[in-house]
Protein backbone atom coordinates (compact mmCIF):
# COMPACT_ATOMS: atom_id res chain seq x y z
CA UNK A 1 0.00 0.00 0.00
CA UNK A 2 2.89 2.37 0.77
CA UNK A 3 5.70 2.43 -1.74
CA UNK A 4 8.52 4.91 -1.08
CA UNK A 5 11.48 4.68 -3.44
CA UNK A 6 14.82 6.39 -3.90
CA UNK A 7 14.21 8.96 -1.18
CA UNK A 8 16.80 11.72 -1.01
CA UNK A 9 16.40 14.40 1.65
CA UNK A 10 18.30 16.53 4.12
CA UNK A 11 18.05 19.75 6.06
CA UNK A 12 19.43 22.93 4.52
CA UNK A 13 22.68 22.83 2.56
CA UNK A 14 24.23 20.06 4.67
CA UNK A 15 24.99 16.65 3.23
CA UNK A 16 21.93 14.55 2.46
CA UNK A 17 20.68 12.43 5.33
CA UNK A 18 18.66 10.11 3.08
CA UNK A 19 20.58 8.79 0.09
CA UNK A 20 18.09 6.74 -1.83
CA UNK A 21 16.33 4.77 0.91
CA UNK A 22 13.22 2.75 0.08
CA UNK A 23 10.34 1.30 2.11
CA UNK A 24 7.33 -0.87 1.23
CA UNK A 25 4.42 -1.51 3.55
CA UNK A 26 1.70 -4.01 2.61
CA UNK A 27 -1.81 -4.16 4.04
CA UNK A 28 -1.96 -5.60 7.55
CA UNK A 29 1.76 -5.35 8.29
CA UNK A 30 3.76 -3.94 11.17
CA UNK A 31 7.03 -2.73 9.68
CA UNK A 32 9.90 -1.44 11.81
CA UNK A 33 12.80 0.70 10.68
CA UNK A 34 15.93 0.23 12.77
CA UNK A 35 19.45 1.54 12.47
CA UNK A 36 22.22 3.24 14.40
CA UNK A 37 21.86 6.80 15.71
CA UNK A 38 21.99 9.38 12.94
CA UNK A 39 21.24 6.81 10.23
CA UNK A 40 18.24 8.87 9.07
CA UNK A 41 15.41 6.69 10.40
CA UNK A 42 13.29 9.56 11.70
CA UNK A 43 14.07 11.66 8.64
CA UNK A 44 12.88 8.75 6.50
CA UNK A 45 9.58 8.60 8.37
CA UNK A 46 9.16 12.38 8.20
CA UNK A 47 9.94 12.37 4.48
CA UNK A 48 7.16 9.81 3.99
CA UNK A 49 4.78 11.97 6.10
CA UNK A 50 5.65 15.07 4.06
CA UNK A 51 7.37 16.91 6.90
CA UNK A 52 10.81 16.94 5.28
CA UNK A 53 11.08 18.23 1.70
CA UNK A 54 12.23 15.58 -0.75
CA UNK A 55 15.05 16.23 -3.19
CA UNK A 56 14.50 12.95 -4.95
CA UNK A 57 12.36 9.83 -4.98
CA UNK A 58 8.66 9.08 -4.98
CA UNK A 59 6.04 8.27 -2.35
CA UNK A 60 2.98 6.32 -3.46
CA UNK A 61 -0.05 5.49 -1.37
CA UNK A 62 -2.27 2.71 -2.79
CA UNK A 63 -0.85 3.43 -6.21
CA UNK A 64 -1.51 7.19 -6.06
CA UNK A 65 1.58 9.39 -6.28
CA UNK A 66 1.59 11.73 -3.24
CA UNK A 67 5.20 12.92 -3.65
CA UNK A 68 4.08 16.46 -4.44
CA UNK A 69 1.58 16.62 -1.57
CA UNK A 70 2.41 18.46 1.67
CA UNK A 71 1.86 16.98 5.12
CA UNK A 72 -1.84 17.81 5.09
CA UNK A 73 -2.29 16.30 1.63
CA UNK A 74 -0.58 13.10 2.74
CA UNK A 75 -2.73 13.04 5.87
CA UNK A 76 -5.76 13.21 3.59
CA UNK A 77 -4.29 10.40 1.51
CA UNK A 78 -4.38 8.25 4.67
CA UNK A 79 -0.99 8.73 6.33
CA UNK A 80 -1.08 9.62 10.06
CA UNK A 81 2.25 10.64 11.55
CA UNK A 82 2.77 10.54 15.32
CA UNK A 83 5.74 12.66 16.35
CA UNK A 84 8.27 11.41 18.85
CA UNK A 85 7.84 14.26 21.30
CA UNK A 86 5.58 17.26 21.80
CA UNK A 87 2.94 15.13 20.13
CA UNK A 88 -0.03 16.35 22.17
CA UNK A 89 -1.35 19.82 23.04
CA UNK A 90 -0.29 19.94 26.71
CA UNK A 91 -2.49 22.87 27.75
CA UNK A 92 -5.67 21.28 26.36
CA UNK A 93 -7.79 18.46 27.72
CA UNK A 94 -7.68 14.91 26.36
CA UNK A 95 -11.10 15.38 24.74
CA UNK A 96 -10.02 18.67 23.16
CA UNK A 97 -6.86 17.06 21.82
CA UNK A 98 -8.91 14.37 20.09
CA UNK A 99 -11.38 16.92 18.72
CA UNK A 100 -8.75 19.28 17.41
CA UNK A 101 -7.00 16.38 15.65
CA UNK A 102 -10.01 16.24 13.34
CA UNK A 103 -9.68 19.94 12.49
CA UNK A 104 -9.36 19.09 8.80
CA UNK A 105 -12.46 16.87 8.79
CA UNK A 106 -14.83 17.34 11.69
CA UNK A 107 -17.86 15.44 10.38
CA UNK A 108 -18.59 12.42 12.55
CA UNK A 109 -16.00 13.62 15.04
CA UNK A 110 -17.95 12.64 18.15
CA UNK A 111 -18.40 9.06 16.94
CA UNK A 112 -14.69 8.74 16.17
CA UNK A 113 -13.83 10.15 19.59
CA UNK A 114 -16.13 7.62 21.29
CA UNK A 115 -14.52 4.80 19.31
CA UNK A 116 -11.12 5.88 20.60
CA UNK A 117 -12.43 6.02 24.18
CA UNK A 118 -13.76 2.48 23.72
CA UNK A 119 -10.37 1.33 22.46
CA UNK A 120 -8.40 3.16 25.18
CA UNK A 121 -10.56 3.38 28.34
CA UNK A 122 -7.79 5.23 30.17
CA UNK A 123 -8.30 8.17 27.81
CA UNK A 124 -12.04 8.12 28.51
CA UNK A 125 -11.29 8.22 32.22
CA UNK A 126 -8.95 11.17 31.75
CA UNK A 127 -11.00 12.95 29.11
CA UNK A 128 -11.13 16.18 31.13
CA UNK A 129 -7.52 16.08 32.29
CA UNK A 130 -4.93 18.38 30.73
CA UNK A 131 -2.75 16.38 28.36
CA UNK A 132 0.42 17.51 30.11
CA UNK A 133 -0.72 15.75 33.31
CA UNK A 134 -0.78 12.34 31.59
CA UNK A 135 1.92 9.73 32.14
CA UNK A 136 4.33 9.02 29.27
CA UNK A 137 2.42 5.91 28.17
CA UNK A 138 -0.96 7.62 28.36
CA UNK A 139 0.37 10.57 26.40
CA UNK A 140 1.60 8.23 23.68
CA UNK A 141 -1.83 6.56 23.54
CA UNK A 142 -3.42 9.99 23.20
CA UNK A 143 -1.01 10.90 20.41
CA UNK A 144 -1.91 7.67 18.62
CA UNK A 145 -5.60 8.39 19.26
CA UNK A 146 -5.15 11.80 17.66
CA UNK A 147 -3.63 10.09 14.65
CA UNK A 148 -6.60 7.72 14.53
CA UNK A 149 -9.00 10.69 14.52
CA UNK A 150 -7.85 11.39 10.96
CA UNK A 151 -9.06 7.88 9.95
CA UNK A 152 -5.69 6.81 8.54
CA UNK A 153 -4.89 3.89 6.26
CA UNK A 154 -1.34 3.70 7.61
CA UNK A 155 -0.01 4.80 10.99
CA UNK A 156 3.54 6.19 11.16
CA UNK A 157 5.08 6.11 14.64
CA UNK A 158 8.36 7.88 15.40
CA UNK A 159 10.01 6.11 18.35
CA UNK A 160 6.74 5.53 20.23
CA UNK A 161 8.43 4.01 23.31
CA UNK A 162 11.16 6.65 23.69
CA UNK A 163 11.42 7.74 27.30
CA UNK A 164 8.92 5.16 28.57
CA UNK A 165 9.55 2.75 31.44
CA UNK A 166 10.05 -0.90 30.34
CA UNK A 167 6.56 -1.75 31.57
CA UNK A 168 4.93 1.21 29.77
CA UNK A 169 6.92 0.38 26.63
CA UNK A 170 5.65 -3.21 26.71
CA UNK A 171 2.07 -2.00 27.15
CA UNK A 172 2.48 0.33 24.24
CA UNK A 173 3.79 -2.48 22.02
CA UNK A 174 0.67 -4.45 23.04
CA UNK A 175 -1.49 -1.49 22.04
CA UNK A 176 0.29 -1.30 18.68
CA UNK A 177 -0.29 -5.03 18.07
CA UNK A 178 -3.99 -4.67 18.92
CA UNK A 179 -4.33 -1.69 16.64
CA UNK A 180 -2.66 -3.65 13.85
CA UNK A 181 -4.92 -6.67 14.42
CA UNK A 182 -7.91 -4.40 13.94
CA UNK A 183 -6.65 -3.93 10.38
CA UNK A 184 -4.40 -0.86 10.48
CA UNK A 185 -0.88 -1.26 9.09
CA UNK A 186 1.88 0.39 11.12
CA UNK A 187 5.28 1.71 10.08
CA UNK A 188 7.52 2.68 12.99
CA UNK A 189 11.00 3.75 13.91
CA UNK A 190 12.24 2.24 17.17
CA UNK A 191 15.27 2.48 19.41
CA UNK A 192 14.21 -0.71 21.19
CA UNK A 193 15.13 -2.50 17.99
CA UNK A 194 14.95 -6.13 19.03
CA UNK A 195 11.68 -5.79 20.98
CA UNK A 196 10.15 -3.93 18.05
CA UNK A 197 11.34 -6.51 15.51
CA UNK A 198 9.80 -9.28 17.63
CA UNK A 199 6.32 -7.83 17.02
CA UNK A 200 6.96 -6.81 13.40
CA UNK A 201 6.03 -8.58 10.20
CA UNK A 202 9.10 -7.14 8.53
CA UNK A 203 11.96 -4.83 9.30
CA UNK A 204 14.36 -2.55 7.47
CA UNK A 205 17.87 -1.74 8.63
CA UNK A 206 18.92 1.75 7.56
CA UNK A 207 22.58 2.78 7.76
CA UNK A 208 23.81 6.24 6.67
CA UNK A 209 20.67 6.99 4.71
CA UNK A 210 20.61 3.76 2.71
CA UNK A 211 18.92 0.38 3.07
CA UNK A 212 21.44 -2.02 4.62
CA UNK A 213 19.27 -5.08 5.18
CA UNK A 214 15.64 -6.17 5.11
CA UNK A 215 13.72 -9.24 6.14
CA UNK A 216 11.08 -10.74 8.41
CA UNK A 217 10.91 -9.23 11.90
CA UNK A 218 11.88 -12.34 13.88
CA UNK A 219 14.44 -13.29 11.25
CA UNK A 220 16.19 -9.90 11.52
CA UNK A 221 15.98 -10.02 15.31
CA UNK A 222 17.86 -13.32 15.20
CA UNK A 223 20.44 -12.14 12.67
CA UNK A 224 23.90 -12.11 14.28
CA UNK A 225 24.93 -8.94 12.42
CA UNK A 226 21.80 -7.08 13.62
CA UNK A 227 22.32 -8.36 17.16
CA UNK A 228 25.92 -7.18 17.04
CA UNK A 229 24.80 -3.70 15.88
CA UNK A 230 22.07 -3.31 18.48
CA UNK A 231 23.28 -5.28 21.46
CA UNK A 232 26.90 -4.28 21.00
CA UNK A 233 28.00 -7.90 21.35
Amino acid sequence: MLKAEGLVAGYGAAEEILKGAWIDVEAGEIVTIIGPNGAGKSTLLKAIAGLVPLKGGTVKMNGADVTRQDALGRSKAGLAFVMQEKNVFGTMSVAENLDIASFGNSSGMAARREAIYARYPVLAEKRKAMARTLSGGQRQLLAMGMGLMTEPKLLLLDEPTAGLSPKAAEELFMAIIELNQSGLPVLMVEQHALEALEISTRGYVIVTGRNAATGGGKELAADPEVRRLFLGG
Partner: protein
Amino acid sequence: MTIVAQAILNGIMTGMLIAIPALGLTAIFAVLRYVNFAIGAYATVGAFAAWYVNTRFGLGVFPAALVAFVAGGVVGLIAEQTALARLRPSGALAVAIASIAVNLILENVIRFIFGNDLQGFDLPIARDWRFAGLRFGPQQLQTATLAIVIMAVVFLFLRFTRFGKAMRAVADNPDLGRLFGMDPARIAMITVVLGAGLAGVGGVLLGLDTAIDPMTGSRLLLSIFAAAVLGGLGSIPGAVLGAVMIGVGEELAVLVLPATYRSAVGFATILLILSLRPAGILGERNT
Protein backbone atom coordinates in the same frame (compact mmCIF):
# COMPACT_ATOMS: atom_id res chain seq x y z
CA MET B 1 -14.49 51.70 55.99
CA THR B 2 -16.93 52.95 53.40
CA ILE B 3 -14.09 54.73 51.63
CA VAL B 4 -12.14 51.50 51.36
CA ALA B 5 -15.21 49.58 50.18
CA GLN B 6 -15.88 52.27 47.59
CA ALA B 7 -12.26 52.10 46.42
CA ILE B 8 -12.48 48.32 46.09
CA LEU B 9 -15.76 48.60 44.16
CA ASN B 10 -14.28 51.21 41.84
CA GLY B 11 -11.14 49.11 41.48
CA ILE B 12 -13.12 46.04 40.44
CA MET B 13 -15.02 48.15 37.89
CA THR B 14 -11.84 49.65 36.42
CA GLY B 15 -10.20 46.22 36.53
CA MET B 16 -12.95 44.66 34.45
CA LEU B 17 -12.44 47.37 31.84
CA ILE B 18 -8.65 46.98 31.82
CA ALA B 19 -9.23 43.25 31.45
CA ILE B 20 -10.61 43.65 27.92
CA PRO B 21 -7.45 45.08 26.29
CA ALA B 22 -5.34 42.90 28.61
CA LEU B 23 -7.11 39.88 27.07
CA GLY B 24 -6.13 41.21 23.66
CA LEU B 25 -2.49 41.66 24.68
CA THR B 26 -2.25 38.21 26.24
CA ALA B 27 -4.01 36.48 23.30
CA ILE B 28 -1.59 38.04 20.82
CA PHE B 29 1.31 37.02 23.04
CA ALA B 30 0.00 33.45 23.35
CA VAL B 31 -0.11 32.89 19.60
CA LEU B 32 2.54 35.25 18.19
CA ARG B 33 4.95 35.24 21.15
CA TYR B 34 5.61 38.95 21.38
CA VAL B 35 4.30 41.77 23.55
CA ASN B 36 2.35 44.21 21.40
CA PHE B 37 2.64 47.65 22.97
CA ALA B 38 0.62 49.14 20.11
CA ILE B 39 -2.39 47.76 21.94
CA GLY B 40 -2.55 51.20 23.65
CA ALA B 41 -3.04 52.93 20.32
CA TYR B 42 -5.53 50.29 19.18
CA ALA B 43 -7.55 51.17 22.29
CA THR B 44 -7.40 54.86 21.34
CA VAL B 45 -8.41 54.06 17.74
CA GLY B 46 -11.41 52.12 19.07
CA ALA B 47 -12.33 54.92 21.47
CA PHE B 48 -12.23 57.57 18.72
CA ALA B 49 -14.12 55.39 16.23
CA ALA B 50 -16.84 54.83 18.81
CA TRP B 51 -16.86 58.49 19.82
CA TYR B 52 -17.23 59.50 16.17
CA VAL B 53 -20.24 57.28 15.48
CA ASN B 54 -21.71 58.18 18.86
CA THR B 55 -21.53 61.96 18.48
CA ARG B 56 -22.13 62.12 14.70
CA PHE B 57 -24.74 59.44 14.21
CA GLY B 58 -26.08 59.07 17.73
CA LEU B 59 -25.16 55.39 18.04
CA GLY B 60 -25.59 53.95 21.53
CA VAL B 61 -22.91 52.27 23.61
CA PHE B 62 -23.39 48.73 22.29
CA PRO B 63 -23.28 49.46 18.54
CA ALA B 64 -20.48 51.98 19.14
CA ALA B 65 -18.46 49.29 20.94
CA LEU B 66 -18.95 47.04 17.94
CA VAL B 67 -17.62 49.78 15.66
CA ALA B 68 -14.65 50.13 18.03
CA PHE B 69 -13.94 46.39 17.76
CA VAL B 70 -13.92 46.52 13.98
CA ALA B 71 -11.80 49.72 13.87
CA GLY B 72 -9.26 48.37 16.37
CA GLY B 73 -9.11 45.01 14.60
CA VAL B 74 -8.64 46.49 11.12
CA VAL B 75 -5.95 48.94 12.24
CA GLY B 76 -4.25 46.16 14.19
CA LEU B 77 -4.24 43.88 11.17
CA ILE B 78 -2.84 46.61 8.91
CA ALA B 79 -0.07 47.41 11.42
CA GLU B 80 0.73 43.73 11.73
CA GLN B 81 0.85 43.12 7.98
CA THR B 82 2.76 46.26 7.01
CA ALA B 83 5.25 46.49 9.89
CA LEU B 84 5.29 43.97 12.69
CA ALA B 85 5.01 40.65 10.82
CA ARG B 86 7.98 41.56 8.64
CA LEU B 87 10.18 41.95 11.71
CA ARG B 88 9.26 38.62 13.25
CA PRO B 89 12.37 36.87 11.85
CA SER B 90 14.46 39.36 13.87
CA GLY B 91 12.98 38.12 17.13
CA ALA B 92 10.30 39.00 19.65
CA LEU B 93 12.22 41.96 21.06
CA ALA B 94 12.51 43.67 17.69
CA VAL B 95 8.77 43.26 17.13
CA ALA B 96 7.95 44.55 20.61
CA ILE B 97 10.11 47.65 20.08
CA ALA B 98 8.54 48.21 16.66
CA SER B 99 5.13 48.00 18.29
CA ILE B 100 6.12 50.95 20.51
CA ALA B 101 6.87 52.88 17.31
CA VAL B 102 3.50 51.81 15.86
CA ASN B 103 1.89 53.08 19.06
CA LEU B 104 3.53 56.50 18.66
CA ILE B 105 2.66 56.75 14.97
CA LEU B 106 -1.00 55.86 15.48
CA GLU B 107 -1.29 58.22 18.43
CA ASN B 108 -0.07 61.09 16.26
CA VAL B 109 -2.27 60.13 13.32
CA ILE B 110 -5.24 60.38 15.69
CA ARG B 111 -3.95 63.72 16.96
CA PHE B 112 -3.63 64.94 13.36
CA ILE B 113 -7.21 63.94 12.52
CA PHE B 114 -9.09 64.77 15.72
CA GLY B 115 -6.84 67.32 17.46
CA ASN B 116 -5.50 67.30 20.98
CA ASP B 117 -8.69 68.26 22.79
CA LEU B 118 -10.57 66.11 25.24
CA GLN B 119 -13.68 64.64 23.65
CA GLY B 120 -16.69 63.44 25.59
CA PHE B 121 -19.26 60.84 24.60
CA ASP B 122 -22.81 61.96 24.08
CA LEU B 123 -24.60 59.96 26.73
CA PRO B 124 -27.69 60.60 28.84
CA ILE B 125 -26.73 61.98 32.22
CA ALA B 126 -27.97 59.81 35.03
CA ARG B 127 -27.87 60.13 38.77
CA ASP B 128 -25.66 57.70 40.70
CA TRP B 129 -27.30 55.06 42.84
CA ARG B 130 -26.44 54.80 46.51
CA PHE B 131 -26.48 51.59 48.45
CA ALA B 132 -25.10 51.14 51.98
CA GLY B 133 -23.09 54.33 51.55
CA LEU B 134 -21.57 53.18 48.24
CA ARG B 135 -21.96 55.13 45.02
CA PHE B 136 -22.58 53.35 41.77
CA GLY B 137 -23.50 54.89 38.42
CA PRO B 138 -25.89 53.45 35.81
CA GLN B 139 -23.16 54.09 33.25
CA GLN B 140 -20.73 51.98 35.29
CA LEU B 141 -23.28 49.20 35.43
CA GLN B 142 -23.69 49.31 31.67
CA THR B 143 -19.97 49.22 30.92
CA ALA B 144 -19.40 46.52 33.55
CA THR B 145 -22.17 44.41 32.02
CA LEU B 146 -20.69 44.89 28.58
CA ALA B 147 -17.24 43.93 29.88
CA ILE B 148 -18.60 40.75 31.46
CA VAL B 149 -20.49 39.84 28.28
CA ILE B 150 -17.34 40.36 26.20
CA MET B 151 -15.22 38.26 28.56
CA ALA B 152 -17.85 35.51 28.49
CA VAL B 153 -17.93 35.57 24.69
CA VAL B 154 -14.12 35.34 24.52
CA PHE B 155 -14.07 32.42 26.97
CA LEU B 156 -16.84 30.55 25.17
CA PHE B 157 -15.22 31.18 21.81
CA LEU B 158 -11.87 29.77 22.94
CA ARG B 159 -13.39 26.89 24.85
CA PHE B 160 -16.08 25.59 22.55
CA THR B 161 -15.68 26.73 18.96
CA ARG B 162 -13.59 24.81 16.47
CA PHE B 163 -11.65 27.93 15.63
CA GLY B 164 -11.14 28.95 19.25
CA LYS B 165 -9.71 25.53 20.01
CA ALA B 166 -7.44 25.79 16.98
CA MET B 167 -6.20 29.12 18.29
CA ARG B 168 -5.28 27.54 21.63
CA ALA B 169 -3.74 24.57 19.86
CA VAL B 170 -1.50 26.78 17.70
CA ALA B 171 -0.54 28.83 20.79
CA ASP B 172 0.47 25.56 22.45
CA ASN B 173 2.31 23.83 19.59
CA PRO B 174 2.25 25.30 16.06
CA ASP B 175 4.11 22.37 14.45
CA LEU B 176 1.62 19.84 15.75
CA GLY B 177 -1.22 22.15 14.69
CA ARG B 178 0.14 22.21 11.15
CA LEU B 179 0.19 18.41 11.11
CA PHE B 180 -3.56 18.40 11.75
CA GLY B 181 -4.34 20.88 9.01
CA MET B 182 -4.23 24.21 10.86
CA ASP B 183 -2.56 27.18 9.23
CA PRO B 184 -0.60 28.90 12.04
CA ALA B 185 0.03 32.07 9.98
CA ARG B 186 -3.67 32.53 9.24
CA ILE B 187 -4.63 31.81 12.84
CA ALA B 188 -2.04 34.37 13.98
CA MET B 189 -3.65 37.06 11.80
CA ILE B 190 -7.11 36.26 13.15
CA THR B 191 -5.69 36.46 16.67
CA VAL B 192 -4.30 39.91 15.87
CA VAL B 193 -7.74 41.08 14.68
CA LEU B 194 -9.37 39.66 17.81
CA GLY B 195 -6.71 41.07 20.16
CA ALA B 196 -6.61 44.53 18.59
CA GLY B 197 -10.41 44.55 18.38
CA LEU B 198 -10.66 43.79 22.10
CA ALA B 199 -8.23 46.65 22.75
CA GLY B 200 -10.53 48.91 20.72
CA VAL B 201 -13.56 47.92 22.80
CA GLY B 202 -11.53 48.41 25.99
CA GLY B 203 -10.69 51.92 24.83
CA VAL B 204 -14.38 52.81 24.52
CA LEU B 205 -15.37 51.29 27.83
CA LEU B 206 -12.60 53.13 29.63
CA GLY B 207 -13.34 56.35 27.74
CA LEU B 208 -17.07 56.33 28.50
CA ASP B 209 -16.37 57.07 32.14
CA THR B 210 -14.32 60.18 31.51
CA ALA B 211 -13.25 61.74 28.24
CA ILE B 212 -10.88 60.65 25.51
CA ASP B 213 -7.86 62.23 23.85
CA PRO B 214 -5.06 60.87 21.64
CA MET B 215 -3.12 59.73 24.72
CA THR B 216 -5.99 57.72 26.23
CA GLY B 217 -4.65 54.32 25.26
CA SER B 218 -1.02 55.11 25.94
CA ARG B 219 -1.87 56.17 29.49
CA LEU B 220 -3.61 52.85 30.04
CA LEU B 221 -0.81 50.84 28.50
CA LEU B 222 1.08 50.32 31.74
CA SER B 223 -2.00 49.05 33.59
CA ILE B 224 -2.90 46.75 30.67
CA PHE B 225 0.64 45.39 30.44
CA ALA B 226 0.86 44.98 34.23
CA ALA B 227 -2.44 43.08 34.26
CA ALA B 228 -1.34 40.65 31.54
CA VAL B 229 2.11 40.09 33.06
CA LEU B 230 0.69 39.70 36.54
CA GLY B 231 -1.78 37.03 35.46
CA GLY B 232 0.88 35.27 33.41
CA LEU B 233 1.43 36.39 29.81
CA GLY B 234 -0.54 34.12 27.52
CA SER B 235 -3.08 33.11 30.16
CA ILE B 236 -6.62 34.27 29.38
CA PRO B 237 -8.08 33.89 32.90
CA GLY B 238 -4.81 35.33 34.22
CA ALA B 239 -5.35 38.55 32.29
CA VAL B 240 -8.76 39.06 33.91
CA LEU B 241 -7.48 38.25 37.39
CA GLY B 242 -4.43 40.46 36.92
CA ALA B 243 -6.58 43.35 35.65
CA VAL B 244 -8.89 43.25 38.66
CA MET B 245 -5.90 43.13 41.01
CA ILE B 246 -4.28 46.10 39.28
CA GLY B 247 -7.57 48.02 39.31
CA VAL B 248 -8.14 47.46 43.03
CA GLY B 249 -4.47 48.09 43.81
CA GLU B 250 -4.50 51.43 42.01
CA GLU B 251 -7.68 52.61 43.70
CA LEU B 252 -6.46 51.59 47.16
CA ALA B 253 -3.08 53.23 46.60
CA VAL B 254 -4.75 56.52 45.77
CA LEU B 255 -6.30 56.51 49.26
CA VAL B 256 -2.89 56.86 50.86
CA LEU B 257 -0.73 58.27 48.05
CA PRO B 258 -1.10 61.33 45.80
CA ALA B 259 -3.00 60.41 42.61
CA THR B 260 0.12 60.99 40.51
CA TYR B 261 1.58 57.79 41.97
CA ARG B 262 -1.31 55.72 40.68
CA SER B 263 0.67 54.33 37.77
CA ALA B 264 3.54 53.39 40.07
CA VAL B 265 1.22 50.71 41.47
CA GLY B 266 1.42 48.84 38.20
CA PHE B 267 5.21 48.75 38.30
CA ALA B 268 5.36 47.92 42.00
CA THR B 269 2.88 45.05 41.61
CA ILE B 270 4.75 43.59 38.65
CA LEU B 271 7.99 43.76 40.61
CA LEU B 272 6.50 42.15 43.70
CA ILE B 273 4.53 39.32 42.05
CA LEU B 274 7.18 38.42 39.52
CA SER B 275 9.84 38.21 42.23
CA LEU B 276 7.69 35.59 43.92
CA ARG B 277 6.24 33.90 40.84
CA PRO B 278 8.20 34.61 37.66
CA ALA B 279 5.60 32.97 35.38
CA GLY B 280 2.80 35.19 36.72
CA ILE B 281 -0.11 34.05 38.83
CA LEU B 282 -1.73 31.72 36.31
CA GLY B 283 1.24 31.46 33.95
CA GLU B 284 1.87 27.94 32.73
CA ARG B 285 5.03 28.27 30.77
CA ASN B 286 8.47 28.07 32.30
CA THR B 287 9.97 30.39 29.71
